[in-house]
Structures are given as structure tokens and as C-alpha cells.
């Protein structure tokens, strides 16, 4: 879906961002992301290698989850307005896990001639465990500048 148009003046600190979720990750999702990203660390697609590394099975690339989580920011602000996106990886996601992504606005500021919004992000699994925590900075159009 295209991002909803939002003006800086209409956003408040504490506002929640629209949720993004992916239900039941599959091994095919990992393989598709491997091809798309170029991350062919076998720990994410090769069961034999995963077991030899002490894991019960393959698990999602952190950057797959981070890509899904980034959609919270782009859905809120629009891709061209993203200025900064930072994530910290906590728990791993396994086949069958859900990835539920949320965010909220923590601060509004003006800097370098732009009207900015800062916020916090989190991706959790179906058990409520944190997969990723993150922060973002996005610029939003101002009502005063004709929406650009």
C-alpha cells in the first residue's frame, strides 16, 4: 500500500504508527530474502549447517525482520522522507514465528530546515519476545509548504 500522506503539524509525540505484521515466517521467506539480499550465510537456509552450528533449525536473517520493521516507518512517513533507521537485534525468529512490528513518535523537532519526527520501533514475536528494537528519524511535509 502507498504511504498515507501526513503533515508534521498533525503528528503528536506519543502517537502510535500503523502496525505491520507477517504471520508464520517460512523457510521459503528466508530463501527469498537470501536471493534478494545476497546473504547466503548457510545458517539461514541449510539445515545441516544450522545443526552443526548448535541450532535446532535455520532461523531468519536479522535483516529480513529489519526490512519488515522498516515498513512501519515507510508506511507512516513515506520512503522518500526516511532520514535515519537504526535497529538492534535481540531474539532470533524461527520458521512458524510471527513478526509483529510497532512504532511510536517520541519527539518532534526542526533541524536543518526540515520538520522531523523521531520515534521508537519494536518487532516482537507471537510470544511477545522482542526480536528487534529500533529508532527512526523521518521528515514530514509541513502544511505551510504546500505538502512537499
Amino acid at each position, binding site marked *: 500500500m*502507498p504511504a498515507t500522506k501526513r503533515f508534521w503539524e498533525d503528528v503528536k509525540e506519543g502517537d502510535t504508527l500503523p502496525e505491520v505484521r507477517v504471520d508464520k515466517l517460512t523457510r521459503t521467506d528466508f530463501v527469498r530474502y537470501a*536471493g*534478494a539480499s545476497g546473504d547466503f550465510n548457510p545458517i539461514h537456509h541449510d539445515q545441516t549447517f544450522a545443526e552443526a552450528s548448535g541450532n535446532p533449525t535455520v532461523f531468519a536473517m536479522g*535483516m529480513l525482520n529489519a526490512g519488515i520493521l522498516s515498513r512501519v516507518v515507510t508506511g507512516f512517513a513515506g520512503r522518500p522522507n526516511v532520514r*535515519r*533507521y*537504526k535497529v*538492534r537485534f535481540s531474539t532470533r525468529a524461527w520458521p512458524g514465528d510471527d513478526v509483529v512490528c510497532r512504532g511510536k513518535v517520541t519527539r518532534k523537532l526542526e533541524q536543518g530546515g526540515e520538520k522531523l519526527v523521531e520515534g521508537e520501533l519494536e518487532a516482537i514475536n507471537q510470544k511477545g519476545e522482542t526480536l528487534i528494537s529500533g529508532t527512526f528519524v523521518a521528515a514530514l511535509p509541513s502544511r505551510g509548504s504546500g505538502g512537499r
Partner: protein
Amino acid sequence: MPVDKSAIGRTGEPVTMHVERGKIREFARAIKDDDPLYYDEGHAAKEAGGIMPPVTFLQTVSHWDDGRGRPRLPFDLKRVLHGEQEFEFLAPIHAGDVLTAMSKIVDVYEKPGKRGGSMTFAVTETEYRNAKGALVARARAVGIETGQVVKD
């Protein structure tokens, strides 16, 4: 054993990366994003001056790296975790752009691990410049080598 800080300042070779429309589409599908900005040229031209890559797309630089672009870390692959990742965008990037990526290890440090042993952290920064030489993005990755094979 004290952490070996000699890797700090080590740089990789410059990597030339073509930002391709098909690769953007493939990447957007992999993160299950159906925003027409990544698929529909007409829509993207109107909204953003052209098709843009998703926020985390610059990770695909590894497709363009023959192995010399990443400065080598003294890490064992079976014990490596991706700790943190950050992207900063300074100017728009569009499909068709040709970027040059330069990576550098900017820090190496050690912390005691929660499950015994110590963990080594390495911070790598990559700067992306467009064909005009303008800095368009900066990526910062924190890699962690754990004291033992990773278990949750």
C-alpha cells in the same frame, strides 16, 4: 586476552553498485512490501522522482562485492551475530543510480558475555556516494563474535 584493536581503520576496496529496478522489486517482495513506489514507475515518478530502493536495500551491496569490499574481521563465522544496523540517508537514491560504497572498521571493543566468555564487537561504517560524488547514505553495522556457539 586483550582485544586486538589493530583492525580499526582497516578499509575495504571501493565497490561499484548499480541500483537496479528488478533487484528493488525482488527485495521489496522479500520483505513483503507492496508499496507501488517500488513497482510502478508512473506512481514512483510522481511521488518520489522515480523508483526508490527500500530502507534496508543497501545491504544488497554484497551482490556487487567480490569479497574485497568488506574489511576483514578476525571473526569465526559460526560465532558471529549481527548486533546492530543503522542507515542514514542524506540525499535521494533512485533506480538507475550507480553508487560507490567504501567500508571501514571504525571500532573494535570487548564486553563480558551474558553466558560466559567475552564478546568482541566490531563496528563497520560504509559510505555510499553517487556518480556525482555526493554522499547519499551511510550505513553502520555492529558485528559480534560470541565467546561460544550462539544459543538463545
